[in-house]
């Protein structure tokens, strides 16, 4: 897969410690500058994880509100980017549990036997690979799904993912392998069709 290398390309060019100090002093413009430097990546990640523009917007806002409110707790041990991505993952994962529960209830009511992705128009017997893949990704354990999305879709390095998720790089790599293996297994019949 061609990496977007988005992560490295958008490394902020601003003096973040100084900006953070200004935000802590109540400087709204410094807050905006910090936001400008990180919001596009946070929004992209939230969108990938939710597949819904409104949810991505809501979670991005929530992420930054929390970040600014807890900025005094940021000690600078890790990069601000890592810290804000941790908040993003926490915000999205917590909120999506509720969203999924709601969706599952709706799904039961609709008498469907598969859990559909949030934004998808996927239907159970759709043979299209993209739709099958979306269902397979949605069915992955959340921690595998996050790793796959961050690495294969958004171009984060294993080091970055490991820092954000607070795990060892090796763990990150093995989760990615497991996620890919599960996808291949879920799409095995499609692969056979493709080979024949």
């Amino acid at each position: 897969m061609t990496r977007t290398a988005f992560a490295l390309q958008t490394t902020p060019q601003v003096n973040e410690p100084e900006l953070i100090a200004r935000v802590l002093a109540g400087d709204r413009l410094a807050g905006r500058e910090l936001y400008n430097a990180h919001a596009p990546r946070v929004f992209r990640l939230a969108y990938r994880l939710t597949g819904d523009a409104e949810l991505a917007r809501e979670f991005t806002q929530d992420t930054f509100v929390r970040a600014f409110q807890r900025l005094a707790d940021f000690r600078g041990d890790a990069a601000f980017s890592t810290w804000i991505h941790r908040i993003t993952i926490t915000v999205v994962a917590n909120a999506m549990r509720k969203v999924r529960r709601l969706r599952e209830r709706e799904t039961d009511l609709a008498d469907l036997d598969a859990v559909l992705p949030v934004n998808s128009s996927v239907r159970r017997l759709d043979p299209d690979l993209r739709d099958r893949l979306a269902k397979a990704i949605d069915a992955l354990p959340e921690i595998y799904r996050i790793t796959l999305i961050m690495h294969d879709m958004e171009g984060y390095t294993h080091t970055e993912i490991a820092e954000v998720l607070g795990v060892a790089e090796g763990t990150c790599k093995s989760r990615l392998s497991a996620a890919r293996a599960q996808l291949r297994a879920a799409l095995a019949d499609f692969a056979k069709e493709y080979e024949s």
Partner: protein
Amino acid sequence: MTDRNDSFDDLLHDALRNYNRPPDEREMPLDDMWQSIQVQAFPGRSRVSRYARWLPVAAALVVGIGIGRWTLVRGGQPTTPQPTTAQATVATSPAPAPEPASQSLDPATSRYLGQAAALLIALPAEANVGRPDQPFMKRANELLLTTRLLLDSQSGNDPAMRNLLEDLELVLVQVVRLEKERQPSRRTELELIQQALDQRDVIPRLRSAASEYAADD
């Protein structure tokens, strides 16, 4: 078999890229999100924002009244611009006092000049945050429209006022264009605007009107 597996993996990877594909950065609601964030994250600043909202009005009052009085003074001098037909008719009638040219500077015009001054003074601060926000750009667009209307109105007949309006139009066109510029060229545009403001003395000219009023008062 391996080749086939590789091909399938390539196909898989291509399909993966389309999973929950986010919009392009230009289509992200970054400004809208910021509006919500700042309300919640900087509640203590709302008082300042409320105060800031009154700044253009205050500037409008100071500069607007100043310009009004300034042109009133000029209206009594022989250098008053040529009156319109309607004004000439009024001037030849014996009863009323001569209509000053400043009559064209109605409260709306004065308010507009004050708002233009406030906007241009605020521009460097807006530029510091990377890009002027939506309300700022909206105000710039409105002021540009008013400038053009005024240029076509009686106000444009006064050479000094016309000169000022033309300079304001030039600067405001550049400000409005900032919205469509991406970051590197936006910085260049901002520098050009600053140059235009400096070279044409736009803000000092607005201020001089106010100071002339203060000196006469």
